[in-house]
């Protein structure tokens, strides 16, 4: 039996004998991706638990389990973990690492040692972020946005969180840089930009955002630290500084950051839809270019977070208009996916179920975003549960659902095993129902005036909070069930061949399952489009030397 990447690896330093050290020092992009996944999902469950604690507290008005200050720390912890530790690095760090080099026929990323370093930088950031739970005067209570001047005045340990966010930002920049160079330099011969799989396009657009937006928030956090400890006056109104400047600088990064989260997720969607419709994707170029244009327009819309913060009316109108514009390339993608399904030979495997479920949840998330892009509506809905519901429909129901879709799609590739399809589908339905019961009532509660981040509320809102609570119970049950199935499958699932889904892209043409250490033994010459199907069968076939034989 030939060796896979689980049996051997290259290391950053030396040639350690022990398996443990081989994992710690590995520079293999597939192993690094798996380590990211393990750490991220651990933090994901911590943040889910924190959120559940808040839901529990909100089941009835008044204080039950935790006090108001703890509640503030809880939503900050939830936000910091979910944003900086989980969803921002998320899909690029996991699947960008594991799958992207395979898709373009590369042996690894351009800078494998930098990739290893980046992973440990990420771990350092995680440790510092979580350490403030025990060090100093407790975890930050500012919300994950660290708005000045409160973040400058609070006695909690904000500095750790700021430093951690800065380090995680550096890790994000280096990941983006590595992927950009990889995609520019290491594509297999013949693979032009318009022959790349669409997931690679998603990663490419994301990498540009990581590179161009993150330095700004990085330096903003440094300035906030300088302000907090030396009082340089830049954000503190007591010294003539302007706290709204902090919001501008923060959102110049953090709004493109939500496109940084969603673009690779859209990439996963664009892989799954043609593979399970057995049909060439409709409008390949428009999907590829809409990723790039979302990345571009995404820079020009940050002001829509500041409608209520004090901004010139003309600026509000311009930002509102530009925000609507983002919906155009997003809409193009959705219509392209629907057109791909039309007359396709649709196979409702688990990844496809997740993708189709996301079409519903993200459509709600995206369109509710368009409503609050309107200045007048937003003045009413800003900082209410409506915005929270919108955000979670877009991020959880969009990015994380597609992350799960990708997880099921590439599970056989990464592990060489197959999970129980019937049970995995049940897990999907439980999560999908729980998700909607959890978040949809918040649209109504928010519309009626329930503010976000409140630890107490008026009795008339109780019914919505109770619905949400039971939704959360169903949702978490589904999550646990889903991960249980996948872990069981990895431990004792049935081995599968290299291409269980009959998919067309290069990562499904590996010599072994799971792939060997240096990926394709022979690099193919790419003179074909990524999703060529004919009568429901892949067109392009290779012999064992990766030479086309069709």
């Amino acid at each position, binding site marked *: 039996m030939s060796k896979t990447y689980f049996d051997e690896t290259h290391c950053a330093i030396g040639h350690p004998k022990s398996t443990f050290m081989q994992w710690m020092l590995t520079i293999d992009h597939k192993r690094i991706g798996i380590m990211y996944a393990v750490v991220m999902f651990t933090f994901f469950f911590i943040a889910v638990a924190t959120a559940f604690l808040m839901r529990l507290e909100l089941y009835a008005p008044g204080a039950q389990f935790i006090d108001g200050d703890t509640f503030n720390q809880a939503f900050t912890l939830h936000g910091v973990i979910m944003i900086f530790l989980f969803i921002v690095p998320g899909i690029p760090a996991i699947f960008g690492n594991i799958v992207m080099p395979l898709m373009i026929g590369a042996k690894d990323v351009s800078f494998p040692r930098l990739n290893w370093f980046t992973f440990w930088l990420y771990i350092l950031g995680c440790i510092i972020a979580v350490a403030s739970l025990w060090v100093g005067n407790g975890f930050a209570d500012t919300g994950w946005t660290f708005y000045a001047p409160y973040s400058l005045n609070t006695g909690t340990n904000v500095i750790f969180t700021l430093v951690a966010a800065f380090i995680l930002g550096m890790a994000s920049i280096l990941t983006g840089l590595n992927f950009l160079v990889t995609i520019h330099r290491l594509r297999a011969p013949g693979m032009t930009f318009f022959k790349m799989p669409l997931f690679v396009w998603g990663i490419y657009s994301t990498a540009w955002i990581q590179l*161009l937006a993150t*330095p700004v928030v990085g330096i903003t956090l440094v300035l906030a630290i300088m302000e907090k400890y030396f009082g340089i006056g830049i954000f503190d109104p007591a010294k003539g500084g302007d706290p709204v400047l902090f919001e501008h600088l923060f959102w110049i990064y953090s709004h493109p950051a939500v496109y940084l989260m969603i673009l690779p997720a859209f990439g996963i969607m664009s892989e799954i839809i043609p593979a399970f419709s057995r049909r060439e994707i409709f409008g390949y170029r428009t999907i590829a270019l809409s990723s790039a244009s979302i990345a571009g327009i995404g820079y020009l819309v940050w002001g829509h977070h500041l409608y209520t913060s004090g901004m010139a009316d003309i600026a509000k109108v311009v930002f509102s208009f530009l925000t609507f514009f983002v919906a155009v390339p997003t809409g193009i993608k959705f219509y392209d996916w629907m057109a791909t399904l039309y007359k396709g030979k649709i196979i409702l495997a688990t990844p496809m179920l997740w993708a189709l479920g996301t079409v519903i949840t993200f459509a709600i998330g995206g369109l509710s975003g368009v409503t609050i892009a309107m200045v007048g509506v937003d003045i009413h809905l800003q900082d209410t549960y409506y915005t929270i519901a919108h955000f979670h429909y877009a991020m959880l129901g969009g990015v994380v659902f597609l992350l799960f879709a990708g997880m099921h799609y590439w599970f056989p590739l990464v592990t060489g095993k197959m999970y129980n399809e019937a049970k995995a589908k049940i897990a999907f339905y439980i999560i999908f129902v729980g998700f909607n019961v959890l978040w949809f009532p918040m649209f109504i509660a928010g519309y009626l005036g329930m503010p976000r981040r409140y630890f107490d509320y008026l009795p008339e809102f109780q019914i919505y909070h109770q619905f949400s609570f039971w939704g959360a119970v169903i949702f978490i049950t589904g999550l646990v069930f889903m991960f249980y199935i996948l872990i069981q499958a990895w431990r004792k699932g049935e081995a599968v061949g290299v291409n269980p889904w009959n998919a067309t892209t290069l990562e499904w043409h590996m010599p072994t399952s799971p792939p060997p250490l240096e990926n394709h033994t022979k*690099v193919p010459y790419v003179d074909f489009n990524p999703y060529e199907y004919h009568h429901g069968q892949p067109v392009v076939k290779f012999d064992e030397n990766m030479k086309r034989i069709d």
Partner: protein
Amino acid sequence: MSHEYVPEIAVDREGKEHKVQGWQDDIYGAKLGFWLFMFTEVLMFGAMFMALTYYYTLHHDDFLIASSSLNRVLGGTNTVILLFSALTMGLGLLKMKHGDVKGAKLMIWATIVLATAFLVIKGFEWSAEYHHGVFLGLDALQAGNADSKPFGQILFFGMYFTMTGIHGFHILIGIGIMLWLLKRINAGKVSPEHYILHFNIALYWDLVHLIWVFVFPYYYMIGAGLTGGAH
């Protein structure tokens, strides 16, 4: 990086051979990566310059008064030093390209000496300012004290120490990686055939001096026309 790396060949349907680019021997990839990294540095300093410009419009007069109190002789000397160090760095790279390893090492040493001189002068400048009561965390730069400076001046000095501090940190890093470069040259890992590390460090040093070329006029020169300036 193994120098005996042999690129793989991909064969198309007509039997034509195509070279596969590997990560092991990718000079252009290394250059591209470093240029992208340089771009993030520009964005980082760019954001600070933007904030500074915004406050300059709000506190115009205070900025000029604060600027006029900075020591333009020391600042100017440092500017000249950095310009020279960029020259020595560039000459070193040219020498390396043309096979003169010894000359290249000499030029790198010259750059290290100039960079150290820059930091020493900066240190004198900061300590003089400290003795005048102008430094991060001192009373004059906090609001609400008897000898507090006006808002605009607090901001100006706060940003001055932050930005020159971050710039100085880059100089320090530069000295560190130049010493590492010398070690790599001595070990034969950087040579006239494989000088990409030297190239990228020279690029880094160019950026560090370029940032100073913007810092100097923004802080030292805007108040130069004001009478009553200390120097």
